């Protein structure tokens, strides 16, 4: 299975029926495709909707219905739409049960960096969008990212890029492992089949402890 699909499938297991969830762009968006049987989410989209449905087929699209990625979308029965002030009231006010976000880097202090790639001194792209608000407001923060980039581990002692949120990450899901993060530190709770704890240590810059209940990656 491709890494991105694996991560999305694993992250999907974190979600419970009826939860209000905001999914970031990229891998997180794919999480919706792998929800366990009986789990229906209330998807919140920061551009102003609750209860998004699937992408419409050509002919069923509506010019005034799109998601936070600018893609045409449908609404499910029971949906609500609102302006951005209301949308971020929901996000900041603690009404989003969980958010799943991608990350450029994540660290053992629960910091996440995903808004700022430097393109020149003091110049960063693409910007934080709604991510900083989600990190400040969502009750549970799940970060999905590939374990390593070409240059090394993305799971660090300390993020090197400008961070998006400080000490906010609850769970890290990579294609190799799952870590819980708390003020006490990072704990390895799952590893994929055929990989050892030592293997994880070898590819992870961050310090972590290993859970008593360490088990196989749940997909």
């Amino acid at each position, binding site marked *: 299975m491709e890494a991105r699909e694996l991560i999305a499938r694993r992250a999907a297991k974190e979600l419970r029926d009826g939860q209000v969830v905001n999914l970031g762009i990229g891998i997180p968006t794919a999480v919706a495709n792998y929800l366990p049987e009986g789990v229906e989410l209330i998807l919140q989209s920061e551009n102003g909707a609750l209860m998004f449905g699937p992408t419409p087929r050509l002919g069923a699209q509506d010019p005034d219905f799109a998601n936070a990625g600018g893609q045409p979308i449908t609404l499910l029965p029971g949906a609500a739409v609102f302006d*951005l002030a209301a949308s971020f009231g929901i996000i900041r006010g603690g009404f989003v049960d969980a958010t799943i976000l991608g990350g450029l880097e994540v660290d053992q202090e629960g910091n996440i960096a995903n808004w700022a790639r430097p393109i020149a001194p003091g110049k*960063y792209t693409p910007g934080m969008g709604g991510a900083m608000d989600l990190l400040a407001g969502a009750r549970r923060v799940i970060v999905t990212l590939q374990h390593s980039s070409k240059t090394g581990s993305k799971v660090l002692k300390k993020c090197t890029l400008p961070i998006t949120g400080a000490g906010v990450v609850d769970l890290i899901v990579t294609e190799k492992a799952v870590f819980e993060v708390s003020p006490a530190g990072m704990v390895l709770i799952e590893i994929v089949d055929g990989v050892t704890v030592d293997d994880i240590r070898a590819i992870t810059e961050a310090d972590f402890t290993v859970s008593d209940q360490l088990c196989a990656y749940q997909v």
Partner: protein
Amino acid sequence: MDLDAAMEKIHDGATIMLGGFLGVGSPLRAIDKLAERGVKDLTIISIVNAHPAGNFDMEILYRHKQVKKLITSHSGTCQIALDQWAAGETEIEYFPMGTMVEKMRAAGSGLGGVLTATGLGTLVEEGKRKLTIEGKEYLLELPLKAEFAFIKGYRGDRFGNIQYRGVSANSNPVMATAADYTVAEVNEIVEVGVITPECVGTPGIFVQAVVQGNTFEEHQRAYTDQWVRAKLLK
């Protein structure tokens, strides 16, 4: 009012809010008219940048080199904007999206500022006052206003009452409150009284001019074309 008349006040160096979110709920006709008029050195306040598939909404303002500064939460969907910025031709100032909305709301609703935890511990803190309330830290975020706002509604009447449709309200209602002069572009101009009081998304007292934008049919075609071109519809 026609769009040309509504545009007369726009000058080089103006600060302009543009409603919409990645092109959805964006005042497409007004943006094209801004390009046509060729006003320069604009400070554009937009919650995000142009639609990622390009050749749509505010991208044309970069093509015509009309933008001096962009105030936004996200710039990454518009390569030409990034190129001009990398080259030092334009500036970008970032605010977290929810913070930016509250800053505009504060400007429009007469608040001196709001306290938010968003951005704590990040670069967003720079230059901002921090307050501790009951042991929790917050950033003080100040109002963000503009001289002009161009917003997009579904229907509008002579009083300036605007009705929104679907998920296209987004930044439009708050921008209407935060600018000195708000121009609303709508798909249809209707008689006063047609928009029922409960369906008024932006009351007319916030709107200085209502102009005819794309008809609803043209509006449908514009987005269908864009989405098909971007391979977002199968």
